[in-house]
């Protein structure tokens, strides 16, 4: 599934925040979440949504 799963996972965590960030990091090889935001579900969701927006531009 890989790359195709990224928008699905981001859509899911936007609707219902969950700790799927590890899966996103492993699929994309990236981690847009700052150290200060570790464990902060809403900040992590925001970071991944922004990361996805930048990627789609």
């Amino acid at each position, binding site marked *: 599934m890989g790359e195709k799963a990224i928008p699905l996972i981001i859509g899911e965590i936007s609707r219902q*925040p*969950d*700790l799927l960030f590890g899966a996103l990091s492993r699929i994309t090889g990236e981690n847009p*979440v700052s150290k200060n935001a570790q*464990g*902060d579900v809403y900040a992590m969701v925001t970071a991944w949504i922004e990361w996805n927006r930048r990627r789609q531009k």
Partner: protein
Amino acid sequence: MREQAIRSTFPALDPVDFRLTSPQTPAYNCIAYAAGDHRRWWWPDPDGICYWPPGVQRTVRFQAFQHAFETLGYRLSSDESLVTGREKIAIFANGPEPTHAAKQLASGLWSSKLGRLEDISHNLLGVENQEYGELAFIMERTIRVTL
């Protein structure tokens, strides 16, 4: 309905002591809640997704959890009784792996956050089940008064 579902998940809950005490929220988990943090998930995951106190090993083992709470001033305790001026937390484990934390309320009852669900009040051993396992150890510290 929710109460019924929780009761069936935790058959050792004392029906007199058990109460739902918050709405569901994914913002924090049981370890964070016992640590007094309602903003983050605390867990020693190797990916660094969750918060874990700096300098404490990221392993799901007793020592890591003990050290994490020691950073907050807690020390191992020999009993779970209510003591004036002291606050206590309890760590539960399934075999060698910690699974859950609860904190003692001023009433002597205990309080837990259930994953991404609600907070509940309960008898100490009421959250023992197949997933959370059994009470592993208690820690305590002097109650900190913030002015």
